[in-house]
């Protein structure tokens, strides 16, 4: 991609330096387009899935199967009047949705969607993901405080308490992944999960070397904590509609509300991608090697075209696994009631935290025994 872009500048006769400076715009535009398409689809999917689970029809008026419903909603939110109550802190009130949304967009750049589609490939990728995702909490607290509304303040404070309580089990369960694959680079973590456990047929499938098997307790903890981190039922206390009137976004309307909404759904998608990347082999196929290599190698002899097929297949596997995880999260939303505030905190500190520490200890000891050949 970079070479193609530079070639374009050479052909137009513009000095190369401009090309080098403007280069980061290209990956950003790709990531932004991905984010918007994903969110537009995800909102529709959530409404459809919830409707089917409760035997309703869901949106079905705008376009075929209500396909353009979210676009219509987005346009509506864009041209809505933005009401700001007179007691709010105007600057912080405007800044808060941006602080909530922007870090999540950066996390999209850090994720390996396929082997090649990684906008920012850094050695400390995993670390940065958590650093950026905790920035979102700051925005939510800011929104609650700036609104000068009792519901918003309660929602913001609850959100902060919840986010910090569930972040610790989350990070400690991820530590076990760092122990297993010995790197924080997300692409390398995915690569470390390929190859299977043996050279025998069937046992060399990638599915057997996913991190979910050695760190199964960690996966359970990560799954629960990630639902809590994106504030979804049964952990949606910060925006409990029935008691806090949507919590921190009570006072928000128009585009500012849309940014919160966008952040919520893009966070749901990206945390599922993270879960798949860390525990379920990311963009790797569950089999030994890629299907397109096996199916087309006798038909297509051009390696470049075959590589393009593999590229799309990687994206397909990642999206298939991610949407499977998202489907389960939506299913949980339709099934479970909301927790109480005290249950929420107790569950994290007295159950998930010891469990994640246990997982880390087990993984570390078992890895040592495997290295020395005692098992």
């Amino acid at each position: 991609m970079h070479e193609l872009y530079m070639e374009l500048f050479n052909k137009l006769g513009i000095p190369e330096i401009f090309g080098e400076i403007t280069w980061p715009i290209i990956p950003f535009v790709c990531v932004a387009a991905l984010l918007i398409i994903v969110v537009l689809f995800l909102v529709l999917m959530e409404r459809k899935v919830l409707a089917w689970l409760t035997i309703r029809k869901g949106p079905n008026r705008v376009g075929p199967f209500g396909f353009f419903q979210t676009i219509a909603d987005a346009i509506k939110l864009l041209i809505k009047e933005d009401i700001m109550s007179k007691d709010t802190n105007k600057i912080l009130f405007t800044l808060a949705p941006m602080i909530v949304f922007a870090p999540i967009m950066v996390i999209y750049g850090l994720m390996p969607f396929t082997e090649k589609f990684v906008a920012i490939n850094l050695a400390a990728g995993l670390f940065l993901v958590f650093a950026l995702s905790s920035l979102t909490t700051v925005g939510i607290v800011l929104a609650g405080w700036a609104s000068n509304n009792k519901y918003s303040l309660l929602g913001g404070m609850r959100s902060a308490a919840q986010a910090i309580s569930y972040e610790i089990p989350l990070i400690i369960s991820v530590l076990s992944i760092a122990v297993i694959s010995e790197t924080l680079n997300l692409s390398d973590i995915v690569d470390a999960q390929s190859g299977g456990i043996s050279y025998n047929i069937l046992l060399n499938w990638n599915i057997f070397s996913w991190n979910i098997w050695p760190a199964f307790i960690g996966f359970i903890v990560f799954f629960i904590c990630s639902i809590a981190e994106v504030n979804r039922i049964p952990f949606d206390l910060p925006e409990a509609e029935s008691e806090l009137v949507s919590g921190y976004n009570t006072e928000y309307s128009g585009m500012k509300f849309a940014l919160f909404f966008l952040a919520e759904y893009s966070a749901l998608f990206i945390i599922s991608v993270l879960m798949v990347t860390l525990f379920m082999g990311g963009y790797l196929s569950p089999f030994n090697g890629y299907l397109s290599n096996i199916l087309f190698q006798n038909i297509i002899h051009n390696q470049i075209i075959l590589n393009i097929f593999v590229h799309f297949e990687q994206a397909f596997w990642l999206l298939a696994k991610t949407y499977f995880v998202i489907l389960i999260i939506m299913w949980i939303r339709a099934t479970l009631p909301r927790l109480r505030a005290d249950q929420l905190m107790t569950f994290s500190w007295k159950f998930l935290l010891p469990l994640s520490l246990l997982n880390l200890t087990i993984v570390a000891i078992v890895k040592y025994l495997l290295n020395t050949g005692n098992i």
Partner: protein
Amino acid sequence: MYISGYGILIAFIMFSFAFAAAALILSFIVQPKAPGKLKENTYECGMKPFGDSRIQFDIKYYLYALLFLIFDIEAVFLFPWAVSYNKLGLFALVEALIFIGILILGLVYAWKKDALKWQ
């Protein structure tokens, strides 16, 4: 490639904020503006809002914040150990386990002192 790695990260952070700001500015241009006295009131389920909502907040939130700091720093300390696990060997493994053990003791202490109880 002049801009790579952390340079792209910084560019991404700036672009993301610009993206959010652009969305707000675009909506500011196209939206109708019809301010009204009642519209600008704080929403409180239709009642007249009373008092300021920026009050002193419950101490229990700060207690959790303190606990969070302790365990978060623990996690930060453990990351370098986890990344170079094979190079460090048995000695570091035992040390890390002792470190985790001390923190579990701290958790048990907080538990017994009822610091984890949401009142």
